[in-house]
């Protein structure tokens, strides 16, 4: 082995160093690429949903002056003041009257393309102001599904031509549709809304919160403050850790086999949905609650005990209030997960077509994620946009909840 000259050695080291630094840069670039790609995918997902959703908050509407004064509508004003004015107007034949008046204003061809539920919106306006019956008033009523696709340039040439003709006269246009947030499920994308599903979600979340929060906090307090170190406590801890990792669909199977056997008449009710989701959320609350309680320094407990408080008083008067911000943060995060959960609710039958918002905890209902799932199965292009709009509403709710959690964490977090 010949001795290398010092010059040669320096050169070799420099070459090897250049190679190693190249590898370093490549490795770093790969890491950056991975983070950037994840962020890009998220951005792409949000942009796709938002751009679709913009159309979902709008719908094609026929705008014209509706004149009911000359119509043969026979209705007693006292009926309009009754408890079901819509029913009264329906039996008085409002549907045909609206159809007829539309034909007079826009022509037969356009009137045939009025959505079959459009009269309900006239009925709601009339019920709110019966004086409208005697005069003409401006309305903007949903066009049929066909005409709506005609306006997008889809469908048969006749429909497209009709849509263009009406649009040219300013009688047909896509308008912002605030009713999307106040109506419930329907068969046509023109008249659907998410209020029913949203209300169902809120009722379900209330049940979940009412069950999971006290049980979760109590379990956390017990395990952290009172539990003796024995096999039972170990078993409880193991169960909680496992429940946190059990797939959500398994909770749906439990709800189906257990809750629906005990309460068979509350199928697809928010109460059963909330109970199922509570079992799923509880472990999350226990785990975050334990961490929050653990973070309260022992000196607080010692001080309380030293002035004569009982152990229960110490925990409920001193430790728990100090741990509350952490507990609430975990609760909100668990609730946000439950709000987006779909599979267990499908299992317990919350997938029925429910056209009216639920009246209480035991009436049949849908929830927002399931509504999204049901609409996503529809082939109609109008539903694609409505689905994206519903997704945006769901994401906004989740964003608000997570924002609240972050705010709580930053605002009230105690640093000891």
């Amino acid at each position, binding site marked *: 082995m010949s001795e290398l000259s010092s010059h040669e050695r320096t050169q070799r080291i420099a070459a090897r160093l250049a190679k190693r*630094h190249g*590898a370093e840069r490549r*490795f*770093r670039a790969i*890491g950056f690429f*991975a*983070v950037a790609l*994840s*962020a890009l*995918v*998220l951005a792409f*997902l949000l942009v*796709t949903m938002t751009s679709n959703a913009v159309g979902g908050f709008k719908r094609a509407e026929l705008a014209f002056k509706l004149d009911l004064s000359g119509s043969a509508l026979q209705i007693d004003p006292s009926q309009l003041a009754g408890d079901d004015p819509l029913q009264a107007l329906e039996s008085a034949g409002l549907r045909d009257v609206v159809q007829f008046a539309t034909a007079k204003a826009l022509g037969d061809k356009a009137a045939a393309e009025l959505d079959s539920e459009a009269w309900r919106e006239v009925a709601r306006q009339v019920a709110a102001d019966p004086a409208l019956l005697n005069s003409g008033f401006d309305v903007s009523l949903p066009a049929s599904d066909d005409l709506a696709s005609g306006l997008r340039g889809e469908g048969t040439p006749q429909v497209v031509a009709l849509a263009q003709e009406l649009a040219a006269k300013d009688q047909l246009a896509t308008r912002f549709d605030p009713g999307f947030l106040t109506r419930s499920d329907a068969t046509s994308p023109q008249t659907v809304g998410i209020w029913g599903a949203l209300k169902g979600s809120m009722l379900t979340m209330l049940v979940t919160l009412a069950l999971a929060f*006290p*049980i*979760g906090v*109590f*379990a956390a*307090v017990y*395990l952290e403050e*009172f*539990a003796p170190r024995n096999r039972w406590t170990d*078993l*409880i801890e193991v*169960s*909680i*850790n*496992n*429940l946190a*990792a*059990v*797939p959500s*669909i*398994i909770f749906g*199977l*439990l709800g189906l*086999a*257990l809750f629906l056997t005990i*309460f*068979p*008449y509350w199928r697809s009710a928010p109460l059963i949905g909330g109970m199922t989701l509570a*079992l799923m959320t*509880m472990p999350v609350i226990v785990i975050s609650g334990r961490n929050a309680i653990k973070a309260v320094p022992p000196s607080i407990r010692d001080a309380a005990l030293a002035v004569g408080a*009982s152990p*229960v008083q110490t925990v*409920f008067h001193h430790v728990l209030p100090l741990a509350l911000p952490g507990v609430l943060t975990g609760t909100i995060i668990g609730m*946000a*997960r439950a*709000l*987006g*959960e*779909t*599979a267990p609710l*499908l*299992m317990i039958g919350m*997938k029925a077509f429910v056209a009216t918002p639920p009246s*209480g*905890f035991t009436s049949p209902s849908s929830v927002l*994620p399931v509504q999204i799932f049901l609409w*996503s199965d529809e082939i109609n292009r109008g539903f694609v946009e409505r689905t994206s709009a519903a997704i945006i509403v769901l994401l906004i709710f989740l964003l608000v909840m997570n924002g609240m959690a972050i705010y709580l964490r930053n605002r009230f977090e105690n640093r000891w």
Partner: protein
Amino acid sequence: MSPAIPILLALALGLIGWLAARGRAWTLRREVRAQGSDLHSLPGYHGWYVALWILIPSLLFSIVWSATSPGLVLTQVLADPAAGQLPAFGFQRDALLAEARALASGSADAVFNQQARALVEPFRAAIQRYALIGTLVTVLLGLAGGTFAFMRLRPDFTARSRVERTVMAGLLLASLVAIFTTAGIVASLAFETFRFFQFVSPADFLLGTHWGPDSMAAPTQGVTTNYGALPLFWGTALIGAIIAMLVAIPLGLMSAIFLTQYATPAVRRWMKPILEILAGVPTVVYGYFAALTVAPWIRDLCQALGVTSASSESGLAAGVVMGIMIIPFVSSMADDSIAAVPQAMRDGSLAMGATKSETIRRVLLPAALPGIVAGIMLAVSRAIGETMIVVMAASATARITVNPFESMTTVTYQIVAMLTGEGSFDHPATLSAFALGMVLFLVTLSLNFIALGVVKRFREAYE
């Protein structure tokens, strides 16, 4: 009457009892203080003692009653002469009864079937009768409990220790809910799986290669040939454990390395929450994204490349989107394991002249490997239990194929498909969902157990 009314009444009674007992205790305290002694417990505890005696019996009763009274209502309605015209058994009878009950309880506006109309009045009468009985008994129980407790209030009454004992029992009960839930899951899955295995032998189920249950066929039809779940297991493994992990492991691991080792604090502060948002997006949104955007895109790409068998319900689309969902999970597990490696090992390597990437690849990653492997196992267990993405983006066709562009199905897809149809609960097609659920539960459970064990051993090694 809504089932909430008895509960609200019980709560109101409890409040009254609390106020009354506290007031009584104040009076007692004034009296005994005049004599120079004092109450054993603070007045508030006397209030809570009475309130608990009111609330516990009446709330327990109203919960039990809301579960049992629908059955009692049905018995009374069936005894009514109008029920004599009902079809003897089966689906139609149940539908008529359900319709009449819905109208009578106010959850429906009209009946479609005229036969159900006759039953509405008997239902309404029975529901009212049992609701009234339930409310009365709730109130009576509350009053009885409250009176009993109120009579016991004395200056030396140990209200605090009794209330605290109840609170401790409540705490213990709350923590036992977790055990009950686990036991409930195991029991309900095992029970229905056992019923399923009375139709289909476990060997046919676990090892059969053809899956095609028909919930409308006779229950005994095809029990040896139509319930082979192997294609489902394969589809689940290919989508959840292979494709999703091929996406999630490199991206998640490299993200964790970049964010912990290279990124400036500012970048880290922004990028970490962005990655966490990926984990917070509901799965139904990912499913919609997969079905609407990714799947057609992958199909078109493949067809442009000349793969003609490409399906718009390919396993690849579901797997890739699932992988994206798992990225933050893998990333945070890797983050934790790398952070757990002692600083001395990193310093040693850097002091020897190794570059940062050499330190990461040759020192940090091997040392953190057990933790990372455990994290990946947890990620797999989450991926194979994921439902909505596959329900929306995969297909119902069960087949064993290594071609990711073909359509394929998974365990969770079939559970949803079997249980959201109209099948009866005695049919093996419906019961098969529980057997699949049992397999899923056992597999995820063992993955979690092994992973947690690995993490624990690994932590101890460095502590």
